[in-house]
């Protein structure tokens, strides 16, 4: 099994998870790197993304597991060939063997940026910091059937709020991303819901890094 770390940013952020899977499968084909296929009635190429991402999120730390048919070229060559076969916005950062078991992945560090077109309201930083010190903070979580309420406080290991520009606040957070998981965009949703007077005009999310339970970087 091989693993690739890749980024998804710029135009790439508008690709859905399914779009991204299809894009990656075709990129392997274009790069002349045939993927092995699953057994069964409808064989599928053996590629999987560790943490599927919702549309609109950017990331510098995605993980992709795959298996190649026959003898694999060097990791550097795989990376370069894939990058030539990919599109702007999706870039393979490195390829390596023997990555850690995905089930040991626990935490995601991300930056959620809140944009205020008329400038960051005074005391917004403080209000938001206080908000995330509450005992419970129920926020809606999208699920396949119907939206459910999820208390995000137990899922936030650390969070820091700071002003990063005249009209921008950044929530830098370390949150649980596996069993159970939360979407960092729920941090922005919490602001919308509990601090409607300082609701931002726009919010965006960038995944920065992955960690295990002990906060060692996960790769």
């Amino acid at each position, binding site marked *: 099994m091989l693993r690739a770390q890749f980024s998804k940013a710029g135009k790439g952020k*508008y690709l859905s998870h399914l779009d991204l899977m299809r894009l990656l499968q*075709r990129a392997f084909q274009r790069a002349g790197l045939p993927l092995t296929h699953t057994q069964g009635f409808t064989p599928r190429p053996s590629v999987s993304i560790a943490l599927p991402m919702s549309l609109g999120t950017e990331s510098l730390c995605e993980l992709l597991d795959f298996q190649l048919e026959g003898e694999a070229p060097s990791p550097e060559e795989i990376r370069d060939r894939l990058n030539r*076969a990919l599109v702007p916005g999706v870039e393979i950062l490195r390829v390596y063997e023997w990555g850690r078991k995905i089930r040991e992945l626990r935490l995601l560090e991300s930056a959620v940026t809140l944009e205020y077109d008329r400038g960051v309201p005074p005391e917004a930083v403080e209000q938001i910091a206080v908000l995330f010190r509450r005992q419970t903070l129920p926020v809606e979580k999208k699920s396949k059937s119907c939206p459910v309420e999820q208390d995000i406080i137990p899922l936030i290991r650390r969070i820091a709020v700071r002003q990063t520009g005249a009209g921008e606040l950044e929530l830098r957070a370390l949150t649980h991303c596996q069993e159970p998981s939360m979407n960092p965009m729920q941090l922005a949703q919490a602001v919308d819901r509990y601090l409607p007077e300082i609701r931002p005009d726009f919010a*965006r999310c960038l995944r920065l890094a992955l960690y295990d339970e002990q906060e060692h970087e996960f790769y």
Partner: protein
Amino acid sequence: MTDLLGRILPTVQKPARYTGGEYNEIRKDPGQVRVNVAFCFPDTYEIGMSNLGMRILYGVMNAMEGVWCQRVFTPWADMEEAMRRNGLPLWALESGRPVKDFDLIAFSIGYEMSYSNILNMLRLAGVPLEARERTGLSNIVFAGGVCAFNPEPLVAFFDFFSLGEGEESTVEIVSLYDKAKAEGWDKPRFLREVAQIPGVYVPSFYRHEYGADGTIAAIVPDAGVPATARKRIVEDLDNAFFPTKMIVPSTEIVHDRANLEVFRGCIRGCRFCQAGFSCRPVRKKSAQVLYRQAVETLEDSGINELTLSSLSTSDYRELEALTDKLLPYCRERRVNLSVPSLRADNFSRQLTARLQNQRKSSLTFAPEAGSQRLRDVINKNLTEEEILSSCAVAFAGGWNSVKLYFMLGLPTETEEDVLAIAELIEKVAATWRANAVNKKRGLRIHAAAAYFVPKPHTPFQWEKQLPMEEYLRRARLLKERLRNVRGVEFNYHDPALSRLEAVFARGDRRIGPVLRRAVELGARLDGWDEYFSYEIWLRAFRECGVDPDYYACRGFGEEEILPWDTIDVGLKKDFLLRERRRAYEGRTTRDCRAGCAGCGADALLKEAVCDA
């Protein structure tokens, strides 16, 4: 990408269709570009990106030095609303540049019900709608595609039309524009010169006069302008441009696969079919070239699905040689090969069986009419025996579902013909009972009836469309008759859309104001159920004082000047009339391979001969 777009995109459905940036998208240095072409498809990205003609011409134009052709599609309603709210004009995907900044604005038009999208796109672009309002050399708006074979309803909005296949003529048009821009011509001069290119029709050079009864009394060309404009064809398909470096969409589209066109034209002569007549003559493409292009396309794109397309793929002479080479290649590379448009003949059955071990395709027949009498009238060379024996083979091979397509309102249709549709469906069901290997799963027959739309350049171009109430009566009769037949699901088309299609297909210049008014009233995305509003159209007709039935239901006289008489697709009018007579006599015409019927389209060929 602008900040504004960055704000909008996360809020609309499927934003990836608005960003560009796909694999094989063509990007050029704007400083090196002399002619910018906005290539517009008047439907959504998912439909337009599935269109082979669009892909070919995108490649053709971008292969020209100094020319950058960029794509524009119809935004979905949520994006349109966001654009209007934010004052964001329609842009081209490659550069994000507004369409109103382009030199040439080209449309590919294949479907009458996209006319509202054309006008709406021009409005969203901020380009003046009518040709006469655009006085400069920039923003020249032109169109090609099968709807250009009767462009009259659209002439107010377009500067000119490119008739027929565009591989060669598009290069000539764009090159002429390049010269015009360099030399600083004015628009009238450019139009005079572009009219000299064979296949170009400049409607403002023709005046339509109407008689007291409302019919066209005369079509008067300006001095020195030929009476008709003749469509262009490519004679040598083997050496014609073919885009083996296709844009690979990053998001799912309707036909998300590589598409290989095996030949052009059709030998069949089904009398209702516009493509079958207007795309003549038959021109072959060699299996060798097709195989090479298939391999190149698949390897370059990484796509794992390939379709062989044409109007009737069983009639491709080298189908066996091609599939013999393609099948092992596709199997090896896990590419799914699909071959639609096969006839119910022996070879096709064997081929279907060989394709089947990849993935089970659907079994589909288009008998169009229920009775043999009516099938003879429309010259649909498909007998009941062929349908039933093909079904028997398929059912014995494990198939349990079949799709059957019919039309209602065909010329000379009687109630008996209508009920014969039900009888044919019942015979298919009986064939299943007699042949199916696994009856536990049950049989599914999906039968659908469409409302016949008479089209220009066919033997039925003079025909009446059935009144809507009568169509509905016949459709309901059939629905009722099939209600208790087990395993049969019967649907019929909503007649409103087909009524408008009939009006636009055979409309004249008096339809233009209706289009404009309907779009002002909010018509758009008419091909999509969720947005189509017949009420808007009826109101536009009423306000413009135009009776849609005049175009759809009146029927045109054989002596009458037809709105599309200026357009020469290579067919002789007396051939179409002869075919019409034979239809009424219930006489079939053999396919072109069995004997030339003398349609006249071979005269379009200068070097090659018709390969029917």
